[in-house]
Protein backbone atom coordinates (compact mmCIF):
# COMPACT_ATOMS: atom_id res chain seq x y z
CA UNK A 1 0.00 0.00 0.00
CA UNK A 2 2.76 2.42 0.99
CA UNK A 3 4.74 2.16 -2.23
CA UNK A 4 1.66 2.68 -4.38
CA UNK A 5 0.63 5.65 -2.23
CA UNK A 6 4.06 7.27 -2.57
CA UNK A 7 4.27 6.51 -6.28
CA UNK A 8 0.87 8.04 -6.90
CA UNK A 9 1.55 11.22 -4.92
CA UNK A 10 4.93 11.59 -6.61
CA UNK A 11 3.24 11.44 -10.00
CA UNK A 12 0.70 14.07 -8.90
CA UNK A 13 3.49 16.32 -7.58
CA UNK A 14 5.53 16.01 -10.76
CA UNK A 15 2.52 17.03 -12.81
CA UNK A 16 1.80 19.89 -10.34
CA UNK A 17 -1.87 18.98 -10.08
CA UNK A 18 -2.23 20.45 -6.61
CA UNK A 19 -3.93 17.45 -5.00
CA UNK A 20 -2.75 14.35 -3.21
CA UNK A 21 -4.05 11.09 -1.79
CA UNK A 22 -4.33 10.52 1.97
CA UNK A 23 -4.39 7.07 3.50
CA UNK A 24 -7.49 6.46 5.58
CA UNK A 25 -8.14 2.96 6.79
CA UNK A 26 -7.14 0.54 4.06
CA UNK A 27 -7.81 2.86 1.13
CA UNK A 28 -6.61 6.18 -0.31
CA UNK A 29 -8.72 9.33 -0.46
CA UNK A 30 -8.42 12.58 -2.36
CA UNK A 31 -10.75 15.60 -2.28
CA UNK A 32 -11.08 18.01 -5.18
CA UNK A 33 -13.57 20.60 -6.41
CA UNK A 34 -12.28 21.13 -9.93
CA UNK A 35 -13.85 19.12 -12.75
CA UNK A 36 -10.84 19.57 -15.03
CA UNK A 37 -8.69 18.05 -12.33
CA UNK A 38 -11.02 15.06 -12.20
CA UNK A 39 -10.41 14.40 -15.88
CA UNK A 40 -6.65 14.83 -15.44
CA UNK A 41 -6.66 12.41 -12.51
CA UNK A 42 -8.79 9.96 -14.48
CA UNK A 43 -6.33 10.10 -17.37
CA UNK A 44 -3.42 9.32 -15.06
CA UNK A 45 -5.31 6.44 -13.47
CA UNK A 46 -6.26 5.13 -16.88
CA UNK A 47 -2.63 4.95 -17.95
CA UNK A 48 -1.93 3.05 -14.73
CA UNK A 49 -4.64 0.50 -15.73
CA UNK A 50 -7.06 1.31 -12.93
CA UNK A 51 -10.74 0.44 -13.26
CA UNK A 52 -13.86 2.15 -11.97
CA UNK A 53 -15.56 0.09 -9.27
CA UNK A 54 -18.40 2.47 -8.51
CA UNK A 55 -19.35 6.13 -8.30
CA UNK A 56 -21.35 7.31 -5.30
CA UNK A 57 -23.32 10.52 -5.40
CA UNK A 58 -25.11 12.29 -2.58
CA UNK A 59 -26.67 15.61 -1.85
CA UNK A 60 -24.68 17.89 0.43
CA UNK A 61 -26.66 20.97 1.41
CA UNK A 62 -27.55 22.55 -1.93
CA UNK A 63 -24.65 20.91 -3.75
CA UNK A 64 -23.59 17.35 -4.52
CA UNK A 65 -20.59 15.25 -3.75
CA UNK A 66 -19.47 12.48 -6.03
CA UNK A 67 -17.05 9.82 -4.88
CA UNK A 68 -15.25 7.96 -7.64
CA UNK A 69 -14.03 4.60 -6.41
CA UNK A 70 -11.16 3.25 -8.52
CA UNK A 71 -9.39 -0.05 -8.11
CA UNK A 72 -5.66 0.03 -8.75
CA UNK A 73 -3.81 -3.25 -8.14
CA UNK A 74 -6.23 -4.27 -5.42
CA UNK A 75 -6.08 -0.85 -3.72
CA UNK A 76 -9.18 1.31 -3.54
CA UNK A 77 -8.64 4.94 -4.58
CA UNK A 78 -11.48 7.30 -3.73
CA UNK A 79 -11.64 10.68 -5.46
CA UNK A 80 -14.22 12.98 -3.94
CA UNK A 81 -15.51 15.74 -6.21
CA UNK A 82 -17.63 18.62 -4.95
CA UNK A 83 -20.03 20.06 -7.54
CA UNK A 84 -22.51 22.93 -7.29
CA UNK A 85 -24.05 23.08 -10.76
CA UNK A 86 -25.45 19.55 -11.17
CA UNK A 87 -23.18 18.67 -14.07
CA UNK A 88 -20.01 16.69 -14.39
CA UNK A 89 -17.85 15.52 -17.31
CA UNK A 90 -18.16 11.84 -18.16
CA UNK A 91 -15.18 9.58 -17.59
CA UNK A 92 -16.78 6.77 -19.61
CA UNK A 93 -14.72 7.69 -22.71
CA UNK A 94 -11.67 6.83 -20.58
CA UNK A 95 -13.19 4.01 -18.53
CA UNK A 96 -15.86 1.85 -20.10
CA UNK A 97 -16.40 0.49 -16.59
CA UNK A 98 -17.97 3.84 -15.57
CA UNK A 99 -20.79 3.60 -18.12
CA UNK A 100 -23.66 2.26 -16.00
CA UNK A 101 -22.78 3.91 -12.74
CA UNK A 102 -22.69 7.38 -14.36
CA UNK A 103 -26.07 6.83 -15.98
CA UNK A 104 -27.51 5.68 -12.67
CA UNK A 105 -26.38 8.71 -10.66
CA UNK A 106 -27.61 10.91 -13.47
CA UNK A 107 -31.16 9.57 -13.34
CA UNK A 108 -31.36 9.42 -9.56
CA UNK A 109 -29.88 12.84 -8.73
CA UNK A 110 -30.58 14.70 -11.97
CA UNK A 111 -26.88 15.37 -12.48
CA UNK A 112 -26.01 15.95 -16.13
CA UNK A 113 -23.17 13.76 -17.37
CA UNK A 114 -21.46 15.69 -20.14
CA UNK A 115 -20.02 13.84 -23.11
CA UNK A 116 -21.34 10.39 -22.12
CA UNK A 117 -21.30 8.07 -25.14
CA UNK A 118 -24.62 6.41 -24.27
CA UNK A 119 -26.61 8.82 -22.10
CA UNK A 120 -29.98 7.03 -22.06
CA UNK A 121 -31.84 6.03 -18.92
CA UNK A 122 -30.58 2.97 -17.07
CA UNK A 123 -33.33 1.68 -14.78
CA UNK A 124 -36.04 4.30 -14.49
CA UNK A 125 -38.80 4.79 -17.01
CA UNK A 126 -38.58 7.88 -19.20
CA UNK A 127 -41.91 9.02 -17.78
CA UNK A 128 -40.32 9.62 -14.38
CA UNK A 129 -38.52 12.88 -14.13
CA UNK A 130 -34.96 13.02 -12.93
CA UNK A 131 -33.81 13.50 -9.35
CA UNK A 132 -36.22 10.79 -8.24
CA UNK A 133 -34.61 10.45 -4.82
CA UNK A 134 -36.01 13.76 -3.63
CA UNK A 135 -39.63 12.78 -4.25
CA UNK A 136 -41.99 10.01 -3.26
CA UNK A 137 -43.03 7.54 -5.93
CA UNK A 138 -45.10 4.45 -5.41
CA UNK A 139 -43.25 1.26 -6.30
CA UNK A 140 -45.50 0.33 -9.20
CA UNK A 141 -45.01 3.67 -10.91
CA UNK A 142 -41.25 3.71 -10.33
CA UNK A 143 -40.50 0.40 -12.03
CA UNK A 144 -40.40 -0.14 -15.76
CA UNK A 145 -42.60 -3.17 -15.22
CA UNK A 146 -45.62 -1.31 -13.97
CA UNK A 147 -48.68 -3.49 -14.14
CA UNK A 148 -51.43 -1.10 -13.38
CA UNK A 149 -54.35 0.84 -14.66
CA UNK A 150 -51.92 3.59 -15.65
CA UNK A 151 -50.06 1.23 -17.96
CA UNK A 152 -53.28 -0.11 -19.44
CA UNK A 153 -54.60 3.36 -20.21
CA UNK A 154 -51.29 4.21 -21.87
CA UNK A 155 -51.56 1.08 -24.03
CA UNK A 156 -55.13 1.95 -24.98
CA UNK A 157 -54.16 5.54 -25.75
CA UNK A 158 -51.27 4.38 -27.95
CA UNK A 159 -53.57 1.94 -29.71
CA UNK A 160 -55.98 4.77 -30.46
CA UNK A 161 -53.27 6.96 -31.86
CA UNK A 162 -51.86 4.13 -34.02
CA UNK A 163 -55.24 3.53 -35.56
CA UNK A 164 -55.38 7.23 -36.21
Amino acid sequence: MKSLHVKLNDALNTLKLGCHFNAQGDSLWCEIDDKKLLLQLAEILQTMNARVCMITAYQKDEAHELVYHFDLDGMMLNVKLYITDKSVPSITPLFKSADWTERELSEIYGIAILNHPNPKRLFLDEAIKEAVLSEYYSLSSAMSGKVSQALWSRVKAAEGSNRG
Partner: protein
Amino acid sequence: MDNTKVILGPFDVALEEPVYFKIEPNSDGKTIKMVDMINGFVHRGIESIVLQRNFLQNLIITEKVCALCSNNHPFTYCMAVEKIAGLSLPERALYLRVVADEIKRIASHLFNLGMLAHLIHNKALMTQFLEAREDFQDLKESIWGNRMDLSANTIGGVKFDLDATLIASIQTTLDKNKSKIEAFIALFETDATLITRLRGVGVLGYEDALRLGVVGPVARASGVNNDVRKRSPYAAYDQLSFDVVLQQDGDVLSRAKVRLYEILESMKLLHQALDALPTGDVVLPTRTLIPEGEAISRTEAPRGELVYYLKTNGTQKPERMKWRVPTYMNWEALKVMMPNNNIDDVALIFNSIDPCISCTER
Protein backbone atom coordinates in the same frame (compact mmCIF):
# COMPACT_ATOMS: atom_id res chain seq x y z
CA MET B 1 -35.10 -10.53 -42.84
CA ASP B 2 -34.90 -6.74 -43.02
CA ASN B 3 -36.09 -4.86 -39.97
CA THR B 4 -36.74 -8.02 -38.01
CA LYS B 5 -36.08 -7.71 -34.33
CA VAL B 6 -36.17 -10.60 -31.94
CA ILE B 7 -37.59 -9.73 -28.58
CA LEU B 8 -36.77 -11.87 -25.57
CA GLY B 9 -38.18 -11.14 -22.17
CA PRO B 10 -38.84 -9.37 -20.00
CA PHE B 11 -39.81 -12.52 -18.13
CA ASP B 12 -38.14 -15.91 -17.90
CA VAL B 13 -34.97 -15.45 -19.90
CA ALA B 14 -32.92 -18.22 -18.31
CA LEU B 15 -34.11 -17.36 -14.81
CA GLU B 16 -37.29 -16.09 -13.26
CA GLU B 17 -36.01 -12.55 -13.22
CA PRO B 18 -36.99 -9.86 -15.67
CA VAL B 19 -34.77 -8.37 -18.35
CA TYR B 20 -35.72 -7.38 -21.85
CA PHE B 21 -33.42 -8.28 -24.77
CA LYS B 22 -33.77 -6.59 -28.12
CA ILE B 23 -31.84 -8.63 -30.63
CA GLU B 24 -31.06 -7.61 -34.17
CA PRO B 25 -30.26 -10.71 -36.24
CA ASN B 26 -27.71 -11.02 -39.03
CA SER B 27 -29.03 -11.51 -42.57
CA ASP B 28 -29.14 -15.29 -42.06
CA GLY B 29 -31.85 -14.75 -39.49
CA LYS B 30 -30.23 -17.18 -37.07
CA THR B 31 -27.30 -15.39 -35.54
CA ILE B 32 -27.06 -12.21 -33.53
CA LYS B 33 -25.82 -8.97 -35.02
CA MET B 34 -26.46 -6.65 -32.11
CA VAL B 35 -28.09 -6.87 -28.76
CA ASP B 36 -29.52 -4.24 -26.50
CA MET B 37 -31.09 -4.62 -23.07
CA ILE B 38 -33.73 -2.77 -21.14
CA ASN B 39 -33.40 -3.05 -17.38
CA GLY B 40 -35.27 -1.60 -14.46
CA PHE B 41 -38.19 -4.00 -14.00
CA VAL B 42 -37.33 -4.73 -10.38
CA HIS B 43 -35.87 -1.42 -9.29
CA ARG B 44 -37.07 -1.05 -5.70
CA GLY B 45 -35.20 1.99 -4.44
CA ILE B 46 -33.49 0.06 -1.63
CA GLU B 47 -30.68 2.63 -1.47
CA SER B 48 -33.30 5.14 -0.39
CA ILE B 49 -34.99 2.74 2.04
CA VAL B 50 -31.75 2.05 3.95
CA LEU B 51 -31.41 5.74 4.80
CA GLN B 52 -34.64 5.49 6.80
CA ARG B 53 -33.52 2.56 8.95
CA ASN B 54 -30.93 2.28 11.68
CA PHE B 55 -27.72 0.31 11.39
CA LEU B 56 -29.13 -2.90 12.88
CA GLN B 57 -32.32 -2.81 10.81
CA ASN B 58 -30.20 -2.44 7.71
CA LEU B 59 -28.68 -5.86 8.35
CA ILE B 60 -32.04 -7.31 7.43
CA ILE B 61 -32.64 -5.01 4.45
CA THR B 62 -29.22 -5.72 2.93
CA GLU B 63 -29.80 -9.46 3.28
CA LYS B 64 -32.92 -9.08 1.14
CA VAL B 65 -31.17 -7.39 -1.78
CA CYS B 66 -30.30 -10.70 -3.39
CA ALA B 67 -31.01 -14.35 -2.67
CA LEU B 68 -27.94 -16.13 -3.98
CA CYS B 69 -25.42 -13.58 -2.68
CA SER B 70 -27.54 -12.86 0.38
CA ASN B 71 -24.71 -13.54 2.80
CA ASN B 72 -22.27 -11.14 1.14
CA HIS B 73 -24.51 -8.09 1.39
CA PRO B 74 -24.79 -7.91 5.20
CA PHE B 75 -21.20 -9.17 5.41
CA THR B 76 -19.79 -6.30 3.33
CA TYR B 77 -22.13 -3.81 4.95
CA CYS B 78 -20.94 -4.90 8.42
CA MET B 79 -17.33 -4.50 7.31
CA ALA B 80 -18.05 -0.88 6.33
CA VAL B 81 -19.79 -0.12 9.65
CA GLU B 82 -16.98 -1.81 11.59
CA LYS B 83 -14.37 0.29 9.77
CA ILE B 84 -16.16 3.51 10.70
CA ALA B 85 -16.60 2.42 14.31
CA GLY B 86 -13.00 1.19 14.47
CA LEU B 87 -14.01 -2.25 15.70
CA SER B 88 -11.62 -5.16 15.55
CA LEU B 89 -13.38 -8.47 15.54
CA PRO B 90 -12.72 -11.63 17.54
CA GLU B 91 -10.62 -14.07 15.49
CA ARG B 92 -13.29 -16.75 15.71
CA ALA B 93 -15.84 -14.43 14.11
CA LEU B 94 -13.53 -13.78 11.15
CA TYR B 95 -13.15 -17.51 10.54
CA LEU B 96 -16.88 -18.15 10.91
CA ARG B 97 -17.56 -15.44 8.33
CA VAL B 98 -15.32 -17.33 5.90
CA VAL B 99 -17.20 -20.57 6.65
CA ALA B 100 -20.61 -18.98 5.96
CA ASP B 101 -19.37 -17.34 2.79
CA GLU B 102 -17.72 -20.39 1.28
CA ILE B 103 -20.71 -22.64 1.91
CA LYS B 104 -22.88 -20.04 0.17
CA ARG B 105 -20.40 -19.87 -2.70
CA ILE B 106 -20.49 -23.62 -3.28
CA ALA B 107 -24.29 -23.69 -3.28
CA SER B 108 -24.46 -20.67 -5.58
CA HIS B 109 -21.99 -22.08 -8.12
CA LEU B 110 -23.82 -25.41 -8.15
CA PHE B 111 -27.09 -23.62 -8.81
CA ASN B 112 -25.61 -21.74 -11.76
CA LEU B 113 -24.14 -24.97 -13.18
CA GLY B 114 -27.51 -26.65 -12.73
CA MET B 115 -29.13 -23.85 -14.75
CA LEU B 116 -26.49 -24.29 -17.45
CA ALA B 117 -27.34 -27.99 -17.69
CA HIS B 118 -31.03 -27.07 -17.85
CA LEU B 119 -30.44 -24.61 -20.70
CA ILE B 120 -28.59 -27.17 -22.81
CA HIS B 121 -31.46 -29.59 -22.10
CA ASN B 122 -29.33 -32.04 -20.19
CA LYS B 123 -31.85 -32.78 -17.48
CA ALA B 124 -29.87 -35.68 -16.03
CA LEU B 125 -26.87 -33.44 -15.44
CA MET B 126 -29.09 -30.71 -14.04
CA THR B 127 -30.53 -33.16 -11.52
CA GLN B 128 -27.06 -34.19 -10.44
CA PHE B 129 -25.95 -30.58 -9.91
CA LEU B 130 -29.05 -29.70 -7.94
CA GLU B 131 -28.80 -32.87 -5.88
CA ALA B 132 -25.27 -31.91 -4.89
CA ARG B 133 -26.48 -28.42 -4.11
CA GLU B 134 -29.26 -29.85 -1.98
CA ASP B 135 -26.67 -31.22 0.44
CA PHE B 136 -25.36 -27.71 0.96
CA GLN B 137 -28.87 -26.34 1.31
CA ASP B 138 -29.49 -28.89 4.05
CA LEU B 139 -26.23 -27.92 5.66
CA LYS B 140 -27.28 -24.27 5.71
CA GLU B 141 -30.61 -25.22 7.18
CA SER B 142 -28.99 -27.21 9.97
CA ILE B 143 -26.52 -24.45 10.88
CA TRP B 144 -28.50 -21.26 10.30
CA GLY B 145 -32.06 -22.55 10.23
CA ASN B 146 -32.54 -21.18 6.74
CA ARG B 147 -31.73 -22.36 3.25
CA MET B 148 -31.09 -18.99 1.60
CA ASP B 149 -30.93 -16.00 3.95
CA LEU B 150 -28.53 -17.08 6.65
CA SER B 151 -28.58 -13.98 8.82
CA ALA B 152 -25.07 -15.00 9.80
CA ASN B 153 -23.50 -11.57 10.20
CA THR B 154 -23.99 -8.82 12.70
CA ILE B 155 -22.07 -5.65 13.47
CA GLY B 156 -19.03 -6.78 15.46
CA GLY B 157 -19.14 -10.47 14.63
CA VAL B 158 -21.47 -13.29 13.70
CA LYS B 159 -24.77 -14.57 15.10
CA PHE B 160 -23.95 -18.27 15.05
CA ASP B 161 -21.42 -20.66 16.44
CA LEU B 162 -20.28 -24.11 15.42
CA ASP B 163 -20.04 -26.99 17.86
CA ALA B 164 -18.26 -30.29 17.24
CA THR B 165 -21.40 -31.91 15.73
CA LEU B 166 -21.94 -29.11 13.22
CA ILE B 167 -18.27 -29.04 12.28
CA ALA B 168 -18.40 -32.79 11.69
CA SER B 169 -21.53 -32.43 9.55
CA ILE B 170 -19.83 -29.79 7.37
CA GLN B 171 -16.80 -32.05 6.96
CA THR B 172 -19.00 -35.02 6.08
CA THR B 173 -20.89 -33.00 3.46
CA LEU B 174 -17.63 -31.81 1.94
CA ASP B 175 -16.15 -35.31 1.82
CA LYS B 176 -19.31 -36.75 0.36
CA ASN B 177 -19.44 -34.15 -2.43
CA LYS B 178 -15.78 -33.80 -3.31
CA SER B 179 -15.73 -36.84 -5.57
CA LYS B 180 -18.96 -35.66 -7.21
CA ILE B 181 -17.39 -32.29 -8.04
CA GLU B 182 -14.30 -34.05 -9.40
CA ALA B 183 -16.54 -36.18 -11.59
CA PHE B 184 -18.27 -33.02 -12.89
CA ILE B 185 -14.87 -31.53 -13.67
CA ALA B 186 -13.83 -34.68 -15.56
CA LEU B 187 -17.06 -34.41 -17.53
CA PHE B 188 -16.47 -30.77 -18.46
CA GLU B 189 -12.84 -31.50 -19.37
CA THR B 190 -13.43 -34.64 -21.47
CA ASP B 191 -17.04 -35.12 -22.55
CA ALA B 192 -17.04 -34.42 -26.29
CA THR B 193 -20.76 -33.60 -26.53
CA LEU B 194 -20.65 -31.13 -23.68
CA ILE B 195 -17.45 -29.47 -24.90
CA THR B 196 -18.70 -29.14 -28.48
CA ARG B 197 -21.88 -27.54 -27.21
CA LEU B 198 -20.19 -25.01 -24.90
CA ARG B 199 -16.80 -24.23 -26.40
CA GLY B 200 -16.52 -20.96 -28.29
CA VAL B 201 -19.96 -19.80 -27.20
CA GLY B 202 -20.21 -16.25 -25.84
CA VAL B 203 -16.53 -15.39 -25.95
CA LEU B 204 -15.15 -12.47 -23.94
CA GLY B 205 -11.45 -11.91 -24.65
CA TYR B 206 -8.84 -10.81 -22.13
CA GLU B 207 -8.58 -7.24 -23.47
CA ASP B 208 -12.35 -6.76 -23.44
CA ALA B 209 -12.59 -8.17 -19.93
CA LEU B 210 -10.02 -5.64 -18.72
CA ARG B 211 -11.63 -2.75 -20.58
CA LEU B 212 -15.13 -3.48 -19.27
CA GLY B 213 -13.93 -4.03 -15.72
CA VAL B 214 -15.84 -7.32 -15.38
CA VAL B 215 -15.54 -9.17 -12.09
CA GLY B 216 -15.80 -12.63 -10.58
CA PRO B 217 -15.81 -15.90 -12.52
CA VAL B 218 -16.59 -13.95 -15.72
CA ALA B 219 -13.29 -12.06 -15.39
CA ARG B 220 -11.34 -15.13 -14.29
CA ALA B 221 -12.61 -17.19 -17.23
CA SER B 222 -11.02 -14.54 -19.48
CA GLY B 223 -7.73 -14.68 -17.59
CA VAL B 224 -8.25 -11.56 -15.44
CA ASN B 225 -7.58 -12.05 -11.75
CA ASN B 226 -9.95 -9.80 -9.82
CA ASP B 227 -10.44 -12.11 -6.86
CA VAL B 228 -10.89 -9.76 -3.89
CA ARG B 229 -10.02 -12.57 -1.47
CA LYS B 230 -6.47 -12.53 -2.88
CA ARG B 231 -6.08 -8.98 -4.18
CA SER B 232 -7.38 -7.23 -1.10
CA PRO B 233 -7.84 -9.85 1.63
CA TYR B 234 -10.47 -9.44 4.35
CA ALA B 235 -11.83 -11.56 7.24
CA ALA B 236 -9.48 -14.54 7.62
CA TYR B 237 -8.59 -15.02 3.96
CA ASP B 238 -5.01 -13.80 4.38
CA GLN B 239 -4.40 -16.66 6.82
CA LEU B 240 -5.77 -19.40 4.57
CA SER B 241 -4.21 -20.81 1.45
CA PHE B 242 -6.11 -21.26 -1.79
CA ASP B 243 -5.54 -20.72 -5.49
CA VAL B 244 -7.30 -18.31 -7.80
CA VAL B 245 -8.77 -20.28 -10.68
CA LEU B 246 -8.02 -18.77 -14.07
CA GLN B 247 -9.00 -19.90 -17.55
CA GLN B 248 -8.01 -18.29 -20.84
CA ASP B 249 -10.73 -18.94 -23.41
CA GLY B 250 -13.42 -16.64 -22.01
CA ASP B 251 -16.31 -18.76 -23.31
CA VAL B 252 -19.29 -20.39 -21.59
CA LEU B 253 -17.25 -23.56 -21.06
CA SER B 254 -14.43 -21.65 -19.33
CA ARG B 255 -16.86 -19.87 -17.04
CA ALA B 256 -18.41 -23.20 -16.07
CA LYS B 257 -14.97 -24.66 -15.41
CA VAL B 258 -13.93 -21.69 -13.28
CA ARG B 259 -16.99 -22.26 -11.09
CA LEU B 260 -16.34 -26.00 -10.84
CA TYR B 261 -12.69 -25.60 -9.84
CA GLU B 262 -13.63 -22.84 -7.43
CA ILE B 263 -15.91 -25.25 -5.58
CA LEU B 264 -12.83 -27.37 -4.86
CA GLU B 265 -10.96 -24.27 -3.66
CA SER B 266 -13.89 -23.37 -1.41
CA MET B 267 -13.80 -26.89 0.03
CA LYS B 268 -10.11 -26.45 0.70
CA LEU B 269 -10.79 -23.14 2.44
CA LEU B 270 -13.57 -24.66 4.54
CA HIS B 271 -11.40 -27.55 5.73
CA GLN B 272 -8.61 -25.14 6.70
CA ALA B 273 -10.95 -22.71 8.43
CA LEU B 274 -12.61 -25.49 10.42
CA ASP B 275 -9.28 -27.05 11.41
CA ALA B 276 -7.81 -23.73 12.49
CA LEU B 277 -10.99 -22.32 14.05
CA PRO B 278 -9.77 -20.16 16.97
CA THR B 279 -11.55 -20.33 20.31
CA GLY B 280 -13.20 -17.33 21.89
CA ASP B 281 -16.16 -15.02 21.33
CA VAL B 282 -18.11 -14.93 18.12
CA VAL B 283 -19.24 -11.34 18.58
CA LEU B 284 -18.02 -8.27 20.43
CA PRO B 285 -19.72 -8.13 23.84
CA THR B 286 -20.88 -4.52 23.70
CA ARG B 287 -22.75 -2.54 21.12
CA THR B 288 -21.14 0.64 19.86
CA LEU B 289 -22.66 3.87 18.68
CA ILE B 290 -21.55 4.54 15.14
CA PRO B 291 -19.58 7.80 14.89
CA GLU B 292 -19.39 10.17 11.95
CA GLY B 293 -17.23 8.88 9.13
CA GLU B 294 -17.07 7.16 5.80
CA ALA B 295 -15.71 3.85 4.63
CA ILE B 296 -15.55 1.59 1.66
CA SER B 297 -15.46 -2.17 1.87
CA ARG B 298 -15.58 -5.04 -0.56
CA THR B 299 -15.78 -8.80 -0.63
CA GLU B 300 -15.74 -11.54 -3.22
CA ALA B 301 -19.35 -12.68 -3.61
CA PRO B 302 -20.06 -15.85 -5.62
CA ARG B 303 -20.56 -13.60 -8.68
CA GLY B 304 -17.54 -11.39 -8.04
CA GLU B 305 -16.53 -8.19 -6.32
CA LEU B 306 -19.21 -6.56 -4.17
CA VAL B 307 -18.50 -2.98 -3.07
CA TYR B 308 -20.17 -1.00 -0.27
CA TYR B 309 -19.72 2.68 0.48
CA LEU B 310 -21.11 4.01 3.75
CA LYS B 311 -21.19 7.57 5.04
CA THR B 312 -22.41 8.30 8.52
CA ASN B 313 -23.09 11.55 10.36
CA GLY B 314 -23.20 10.51 14.01
CA THR B 315 -26.91 9.61 14.04
CA GLN B 316 -27.78 5.92 14.06
CA LYS B 317 -28.94 5.95 10.46
CA PRO B 318 -26.68 6.11 7.38
CA GLU B 319 -26.32 9.46 5.64
CA ARG B 320 -25.57 7.71 2.36
CA MET B 321 -25.15 4.07 1.57
CA LYS B 322 -24.32 2.82 -1.87
CA TRP B 323 -23.35 -0.53 -3.16
CA ARG B 324 -22.37 -2.05 -6.47
CA VAL B 325 -23.08 -5.69 -7.09
CA PRO B 326 -20.93 -7.98 -9.24
CA THR B 327 -23.49 -8.52 -12.02
CA TYR B 328 -23.69 -4.74 -12.53
CA MET B 329 -20.23 -4.78 -14.11
CA ASN B 330 -20.91 -7.83 -16.24
CA TRP B 331 -23.97 -6.64 -18.17
CA GLU B 332 -22.12 -4.59 -20.77
CA ALA B 333 -19.98 -7.66 -21.47
CA LEU B 334 -23.07 -9.37 -22.93
CA LYS B 335 -22.90 -6.92 -25.82
CA VAL B 336 -19.43 -8.31 -26.59
CA MET B 337 -20.26 -11.96 -25.87
CA MET B 338 -23.46 -12.28 -27.89
CA PRO B 339 -22.83 -11.00 -31.44
CA ASN B 340 -22.39 -13.79 -34.02
CA ASN B 341 -23.72 -16.44 -31.68
CA ASN B 342 -26.96 -18.30 -32.32
CA ILE B 343 -30.13 -16.61 -31.13
CA ASP B 344 -30.91 -19.94 -29.44
CA ASP B 345 -27.93 -19.39 -27.17
CA VAL B 346 -28.98 -16.04 -25.71
CA ALA B 347 -30.26 -17.64 -22.50
CA LEU B 348 -27.18 -19.85 -22.22
CA ILE B 349 -24.76 -16.92 -22.57
CA PHE B 350 -26.88 -14.79 -20.29
CA ASN B 351 -26.82 -17.49 -17.63
CA SER B 352 -23.04 -17.77 -17.93
CA ILE B 353 -22.54 -14.33 -16.36
CA ASP B 354 -24.58 -15.71 -13.44
CA PRO B 355 -26.95 -12.75 -13.61
CA CYS B 356 -28.63 -11.35 -10.57
CA ILE B 357 -31.16 -8.77 -11.58
CA SER B 358 -32.77 -7.97 -8.25
CA CYS B 359 -29.23 -7.24 -7.04
CA THR B 360 -28.31 -5.10 -10.01
CA GLU B 361 -31.35 -2.87 -9.85
CA ARG B 362 -31.87 -2.75 -6.09
